[in-house]
């Protein structure tokens, strides 16, 4: 499954877009981070193939780029699921019972935090404060925000995406 997705995104058009991004940025000081962000937008992830191209064009060793990519939690080596569920584990949400929501999400989806379901549908992530503590506990599925959650609502919400 993953390989299939990978093959699809590693196409000529995307690599051409990557070239453009590198071209536009490479003379900037500290170009690596902005390029990685853009590359992840293009490919949905930063697989080794993409890192290799960046490494060659910027003349930075692959090892160093890999080090940077794996250091930051926003960068991902593999594509995320179709629906990315971000459950807020910020302090306000935690104090208001976010852990119980997380437990329920893990049972319902059969995956742990940080994992993607086998069918490539859901990725479960724990986020920090989303800036809407008034709605705690809060969860975001792609862009949609769900607030004042109770564990009992999880099954119903996930059904809409299955």
């Amino acid at each position, binding site marked *: 499954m993953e390989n299939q997705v990978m093959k699809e995104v590693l196409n000529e058009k995307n690599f051409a877009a990557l070239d453009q991004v590198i071209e536009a940025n490479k003379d900037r000081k500290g170009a690596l981070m902005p390029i990685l962000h853009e590359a992840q937008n293009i490919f949905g992830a930063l697989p080794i193939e993409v890192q290799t191209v960046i490494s060659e064009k910027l003349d930075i060793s692959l090892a160093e780029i890999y080090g940077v990519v794996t*250091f*930051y939690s926003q960068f991902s080596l593999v594509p995320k699921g179709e629906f990315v569920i971000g459950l807020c584990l910020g302090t306000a949400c935690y104090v208001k019972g976010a852990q119980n929501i997380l437990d329920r999400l893990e049972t319902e989806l059969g995956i742990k935090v940080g994992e993607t379901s086998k069918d490539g549908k859901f990725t479960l992530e724990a986020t920090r404060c989303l800036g809407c*503590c008034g709605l705690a506990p809060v969860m975001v599925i792609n862009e949609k925000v769900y607030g004042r959650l109770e564990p009992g609502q999880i099954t119903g919400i996930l059904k809409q995406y299955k």
Partner: protein
Amino acid sequence: MELYRSHVLICGGTGCTSSGSDLVEERFNEEIKKNGLEKEVKIIRTGCFGLCEVGPVVVVYPEGSFYAHVKPEDAKTITEEHLLKGRIVRDLLYYESLEEASDQVKSINEVDFYQKQMRVALRNCGVIDPENIEEYIAMDGYAALGKVLTEMSPEDVINHIKQSGLRGRGGGGFPTGVKWSFAAGAKNDQKYMICNADEGDPGAFMDRSVLEGDPHAIIEAMAIAGYAIGASQGFVYIRAEYPIAVQRLEIAIAQAKENGLLGKDIFGTGFDFDLEIRLGAGAFVCGEETALLQSIEGYRGMPRPKPPFPANKGLWQKPTIINNVETLANIPQIILKGAEWFSSIGTEKSKGTKVFALGGKINNTGLIEIPMGTTLREVIYDIGGGIPNGKKFKAVQTGGPSGGCITYEHLDQPIDYDNLIALGSMMGSGGMIVMDEDNCMVDIARFFLDFTVDESCGKCTPCREGTKRMLEMLEKITSGRGEEGDIEKLEKLAYTIKDSALCGLGQTAPNPVISTIRYFRDEYEAHINDKKCPAGVCKNLLTYYITDACIGCTKCARNCPVDCISGEVKKLHVIDAEKCIKCGACMEACPVNAIIKK
């Protein structure tokens, strides 16, 4: 500029956007058109009002009517009644706006939540349209920059900021003017000014609100700082998780450039200053200033040893000043209103105001700004409206993962940098999380340690290994395997890490543990000696029971994900404690509250 009879301010902060203020705005636009009011009523999408709890928030001026929990369909009612006929829609007002006894309507500034507040850093949030530079200018925007460039020397600016007593709001509390003077004194052809918008505290969002609600204030302040220290280039390092803030800042920078307020020869004075945005990528440690520099340069965000300090050797080894968003938001005001004005607010050693993100078990969650020296009791009970559901207050946590807890006895302490430290906590960036009797303090300590272990960059051993060992000990205690002597071991390790870690992350990581042991040792002991969690949080120490109140409706059994509840219809049900995973699904499902956990 056109004149309008009424202004409808719709909150476009993250909290209200999440509760659907986009749709509300759309409907207002439709209704205004339908009623032919386009020339009389102006709709403005603002930054955060602060009272996110009751969002989406809509305020109608000149009356200052404060509508709360506004639904899209309410746009029609408010338009037809209030905007067209001038009758305030009482049913939709924030509950406290309506004085029951006298049937008077209070304006937004008169409700308790805002009365004790004082808005300096947040002054434009919820007041102007952040995507319109003219509105900022109408609020004296860029006047401070003009004054600085035309009337003041860099030394004047630095002295002015020094006199104001402003201290850094990013956590450390270092005097801003003094910091600037270090970089101003450094000789170099290139210097940099950086705004730290990485906002790492997992329970705080004030920097985000300032950037979303008043982005020009940050641009103006950075240009002023750039002039003071002699930097021609600035960077805003902002979390990638804040898309709205990034977008508004991009718009604001473009507008400032168009208007000649950024770029070459600003105000024709020969001063050049340019600004670039750099995105973070989800690493808490990058909020630490030297790690932030590493990240901008394109490396793993690992802190550098200090000295050398960034003011001498910072970004690309050039003299660099790093200031927090909220610190900067104060600067234009200090220039315009004077250092004496600013230093007249607050306590002896902590001047001005501080923004807090008030959250957790409190009625009015949201963003508040108070003069330093306000007591915790005023914040929690007068502004925050107290603890919901008649529960008992237990503690308030400040300073996030670097801070600690403050208990009931200390609620009358005035909030300032030094007092909070004396209480074993700290100001931090301004997260303020209230906890009630249902929160387990050992579990809270475990929560913060879990955070630091996750975010430790791994460069120094005390932090990388030490915090992990502490987390393991806390997990052992919360899962019921605690042994006598564990508390002492935790304390010893905590102080060792504090003394030996490389950066602020490690040095402060043990604070939540030290502080909870200091004030709630009995809770730790209950977990260890009696294998009980008094607050009923730690799962392994709980057992679920069904009491005689059970009516045998079978709801619990049907909702149990592991089928561990048995019983016949209309008869008492029983939970098989061996199989129970303690998820609480049965307790939620029970219509008669017959299920308890102990």
